[in-house]
């Protein structure tokens, strides 16, 4: 990748981002950084703007003010062709899976390869089967999205995000609705991608055990701001009053 030489700073940088929907202010001076090759988890109460944050990072939403830089490039200044190129280096796991409802599981995962590469049928099949094995659904190829559970949709969504070997993956609650065993293996997968391939990840996550396994850093989002950004050890021992309230007595 020729552009990589110039990209030495953080993979994602939010500076003073504000975003409102009508009267509702969701982000209000939000700043954060994700270093290259690291995993940052975002925590926060439901409806606080975690998904909105991820959508800013991939250009599905644009900030009202402030800047969002990805791979060192201000996303609001990128042309649509540049944005498309940036997105090819990124993976996005949607909260509800967002599988294409008229394509089978296998075709959903194969779609980015069919649309954006010249790979042959055999190569595509091999790659897709490999990704389906990674998320523990090796035999799901022919199932339709309407036939599978929410947790399984999420896993197909992860397989689809991984199919193009992205450098940066954004996960919106990858473990919600998964049983602990599968959740552990998904966490191990996130970790493996980071350690083996140097993938950077931004993970929206609720479960403390998951956060402890995958994250290099944790960020607490509330009131439109990043209240705390710290490594897990420090984060879970923080005596920030808002965090103490969020976790209740257990962590205090």
């Amino acid at each position, binding site marked *: 990748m020729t552009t990589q030489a110039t990209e030495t700073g953080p993979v994602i940088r939010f500076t003073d981002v504000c975003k409102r929907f009508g009267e509702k202010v969701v982000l209000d001076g939000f700043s954060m950084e994700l270093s290259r090759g690291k995993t940052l988890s975002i925590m926060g109460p439901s409806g606080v703007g975690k998904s909105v944050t991820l959508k800013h990072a991939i250009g*599905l939403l644009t900030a009202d003010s402030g800047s969002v830089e990805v791979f060192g490039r201000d996303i609001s200044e990128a042309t649509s062709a540049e944005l498309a*190129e940036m*997105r090819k280096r*990124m993976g996005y796991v949607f909260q509800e899976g*967002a599988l*294409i409802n008229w394509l089978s599981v296998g075709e959903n995962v194969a779609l980015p390869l069919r*649309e*954006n590469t010249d790979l042959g049928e055999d190569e595509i099949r091999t790659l897709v089967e490999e990704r389906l094995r990674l998320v523990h659904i090796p035999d799901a190829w022919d199932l339709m999205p309407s036939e599978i559970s929410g947790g399984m949709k999420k896993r197909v969504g992860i397989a*689809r995000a991984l199919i193009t070997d992205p450098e940066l993956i954004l996960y919106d609650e990858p473990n919600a609705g998964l049983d602990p065993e599968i959740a552990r293996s998904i966490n191990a997968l996130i970790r493996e991608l980071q350690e083996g391939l140097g993938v950077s990840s931004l993970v929206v996550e609720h479960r403390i055990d998951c956060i402890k396994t995958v994250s290099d850093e944790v960020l607490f989002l509330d009131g439109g701001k990043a209240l705390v950004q710290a490594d897990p050890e420090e984060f879970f021992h923080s005596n920030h009053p808002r965090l103490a309230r969020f976790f209740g007595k257990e962590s205090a």
Partner: protein
Amino acid sequence: MAEATEIQAQEEPAAALKKDAAFISFLRSEGERIELLLRTLRRLGHTPKRARLVYEQMFLSGIQTLHVVLLVGLFIGMIVSLQTGIELAKLGQQDQIGTIVAISMAREMGPFITGTILTATVGSAIAAELGTMSVSNELDALKVMSIDRLSLLVLPRLVGLALIAPLLTLVCDTVGIIGGAFVAQAQLNVGYEMYMTSAIDALRPTGFLLNLPKDLYAGLIKAVVFGGMIATVACNEGLKTTGGALGVGRSTRSAVRDSIIGIIVLNYFMTWFMYQA
């Protein structure tokens, strides 16, 4: 009473404002549709790559509407035959009934009926399908994967409908003329042979650009335009859907309403262009 006028007076400016806003939003959505059409036409070269989706769209649209086209076409032919036949009989001209039915089916009724049926069955389905994709984040998913949504979703529907509409129109014309023949035979005492001869003779004149039966191909051109317009309107409404299941309902409704208006307005201008200009 006084109270009522007061309320009315208060509401008037708001209503006027609303009317302006409605007109502006009408212009804006027409603009959007034309833009979508042009951007999709620029991808016409992708059609071979999308052949399977185009074929599926044609097949589904054909299957879903064929029986309706057969039934409605037959009865429209019968109605035209009966209505005009009664008047022609008063003048002793019932021999001409084949001519009238053939021409009105080919020029107007065939494409109009086919377009209306396609709007109600296929256009509404397209708006609902794409609308559902929009509200369940599937369109966003395509976006983040840098997949060309116009090429994948809009092009096959546009091409499929533009191709299936003239075929269905041909079917509609044919059953209409046959329906007219039944009525001519049974109620107006015009023999089958006489009817068919006059019907075929009526469609024979060629002209305007091509050396083909003019009334027939003028109607088929209309059908192609209607098919493309229905697909464009339905895709546009579907793609911009927001607001969950309610939003999907809203998009479907506007797609059907605006396509029917479109068919009528475009029909007038195409008739004017092909027969008067």
